[in-house]
């Protein structure tokens, strides 16, 4: 198969996360054309209906724009892209904090360690 998927999360959702990740990392740039539904389905090894749904949801999320007869393109709306980056950042940090707190480490301990580690 093209990709590994988690078993308990809808595949379309996992593909949206993956494409969003590509956008944030700059692998896919504003204005870039997404592969056709068929190409992407073959590429990642899922059925075309799943990819169809991914593209539809991403358009609703205003991360992509569909140009008639040409396909889907990553939005060039910088504000929207900043929002995507911010929300990813927030998600990552929140989940990190939740993990750490589950082990009972104190906030001060963690803040100090994070500072030291990312220097």
């Amino acid at each position, binding site marked *: *198969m093209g990709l590994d*998927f988690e*078993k*308990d*999360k809808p595949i379309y*959702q996992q593909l949206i996360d993956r494409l969003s990740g590509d956008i944030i990392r700059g692998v896919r740039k504003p204005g870039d054309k997404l592969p056709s539904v068929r190409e992407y*389905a073959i590429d990642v090894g*899922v*059925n075309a*209906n799943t990819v169809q749904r991914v593209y539809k949801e991403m358009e609703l999320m205003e991360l992509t724009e569909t140009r008639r007869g040409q396909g889907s393109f990553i939005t060039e709306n910088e504000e929207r892209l900043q929002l995507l980056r911010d929300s990813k950042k927030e998600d990552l940090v929140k989940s990190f904090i939740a993990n750490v707190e589950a082990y009972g480490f104190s906030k001060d301990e963690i803040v100090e360690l994070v500072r030291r580690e990312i220097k």
Partner: protein
Amino acid sequence: MIELNNVKKAYGSTKALNGIDLRLEPGKIIGIAGENGSGKSTLLKTIAGVSKIGSGSVLIDGKPVSRKDAERIAYLPDADMFYSYFTVGQLFSYYKSQFADFNETKAKEVLDFLEVPLSSKMKNLSKGMRGRAKMAATLGRESCYYLMDEPFSGLDPMVRSDLIKGLIRFTDLERQTLILSTHEIREVEILLDELVLLKGGKVLAHRHLDEIRGETGMDTVEWMTKEMKAGAAE
């Protein structure tokens, strides 16, 4: 659209289908799962029009299915139905003589993708290679409906994975529908839009896979096991 209304079918005193109600929409890939003897094969034969039903009705695009529909439904049986002395190329010629919708170029393309030589004799092929050749012959047909009975059974994971890739590449869901029965849900779920779970000749559940994963938070196999247990308790 395929519609089954209260379909019953018995082999002697064994009830193979015991009141099936089912709507299968076009343009989807649908898996049929269930234990041995749950009615998977009989259900596919019934839809393919190769097995007569006892009572109820089977409609394909609004019309009752008959043996004639074998011409517009590409059915891949579980059993080896091919002459063993045929080469793959001869098998394709045979298909061409039987089915007006057979596209030899496409069949050869699938065969090439699955890396089976056209000149090999069916009987000299390994089970895995034979499975690929059968798949190529079936996908060579430009039918609206593909019905495949256990297309992955007895094949090793590498072959299964290649066949799945072939199915994605060589079907067009804008005009085709694929219905397949399988034991290997874990490996094919990525391919499926919907899953129909059979038990004792009845439909125990029929769900969209995204729904199963999204709403229940379970993976498909976990969900199936739970449904089967709940079904047994009834």
